[in-house]
């Protein structure tokens, strides 16, 4: 065996590359052509949402519309979108009182008095369609993913129901569907937005507190809104790349 280190390295590198090439070639052979989507190019879009807290009246239209459109179980505690009521006494943003009776499905019966020195407002919540989603990162089987147009979707036929993603989502946006025992979440009405419609929640919102936007479309009014308003995302310290922008977001909102 008179072979020096140089030979050995050259040989190993060659083998390494050959194995890699064979693997890539074989995978390309297996996967075939991507599915055709007529008139809708995923790479032309990058979806996001604006939620204007100063316009939200807490009517619960979005919660009801979402359940109607997406066949979300009616019983409490299953929501793709819900509305929270914040009540912050004495401007103490560390101790807000938060409630969300039935997710806002039946509206919000008045429970605070006007002029009690607190600020009150509604905060609609939903999947933030993060560009770097923690939920996608923890899925062990590839059943949840960021689509090429920036929507975090679920593949229910592939989901094991392991609940890792439910725990990973910092915004609490996922639930296990009691009928299928697989995970479900806001799909940003993917079946609607790819047909040129807006989401069901935006369709039903009477004050335009929610507006869907295409961040890749230079003509979309979302750009003008983001330029002229002081917006914030939820939990920016988590660096999730959230694409749900809140206008008028108070520091007490978690």
């Amino acid at each position, binding site marked *: *065996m008179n072979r020096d280190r140089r030979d050995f390295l050259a040989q190993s590198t060659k083998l390494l590359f050959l194995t890699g090439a064979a693997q890539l070639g*074989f995978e390309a052979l*297996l*996967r*075939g052509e*991507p*599915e055709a*989507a007529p008139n809708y190019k*995923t790479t032309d879009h990058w979806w996001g949402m604006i939620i204007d807290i*100063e*316009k*939200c*009246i*807490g*009517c*619960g*239209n979005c919660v009801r*519309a979402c359940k*109607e*459109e*997406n066949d979300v179980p009616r019983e409490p505690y299953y929501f793709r979108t819900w509305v929270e*009521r*914040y*009540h912050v006494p004495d401007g103490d943003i560390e101790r807000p009182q938060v409630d969300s009776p039935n997710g806002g499905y039946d*509206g*919000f019966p*008045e429970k*605070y*008095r*006007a002029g009690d020195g607190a600020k*009150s*407002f*509604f905060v609609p919540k939903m999947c933030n369609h993060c560009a770097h989603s923690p939920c996608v990162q923890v899925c062990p089987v*590839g*059943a*949840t*993913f*960021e*689509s*090429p147009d920036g929507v975090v*979707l*679920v*593949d229910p*036929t*592939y989901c094991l129901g392991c609940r890792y993603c439910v725990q990973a989502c910092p915004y609490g946006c996922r639930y296990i569907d009691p009928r299928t025992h697989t995970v479900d979440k806001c*799909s940003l009405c*993917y*079946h*609607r937005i*790819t*047909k040129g*419609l*807006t989401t*069901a929640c935006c*369709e*039903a*919102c*009477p*004050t*335009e507190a929610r507006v869907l936007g295409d961040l890749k479309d230079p003509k979309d009014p979302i750009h003008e809104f983001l330029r002229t308003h002081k917006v914030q995302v939820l939990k920016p310290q988590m660096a999730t790349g959230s694409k749900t922008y809140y206008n008028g977001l108070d520091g007490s909102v978690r």
Partner: protein
Amino acid sequence: MKVLFGHKDHLVRMAALFLAGIVVFLVLKAVFVPKGFGVYGHYRAGALEENRAHPVAYAGRAACVECHSDVPETAKGGGHAFIRCEACHGPLAAHAGDPGEHQAVRPESKVLCARCHAPNVARPARFPQVDPAEHAGDEACTACHTAHNPRQQKEGAK
């Protein structure tokens, strides 16, 4: 070199074993990895199409005004002009698809109007709010107000 090829049989057997292993792996992979997995990323590409296949319940304003073109005329200039039809009337894609088979139901004004306009301290202060019982007793809101243009009062309104 002599040491290496002195035991040719061993090497051939080992190589055959490896080859068989690789073939089994590739066959299992082809069987178990679904079609389209990995086209766009670590997921099944077909899941995009399946998500798109979900039926639509809310038809959208454009579908409504195709037939009900008079309503935007009534609403013009009013506080409700920008509200989309199905915000109040509910999901009506079935009605838009076949108006004969699926009738739209007129919402109950006393319930519907209060959802947005009943007083609530968490609502933005500039948003018009009124206690329906105090304001009109048992009378329906639409007895005086035009639903599509609420500042326009109907004839005979007090």
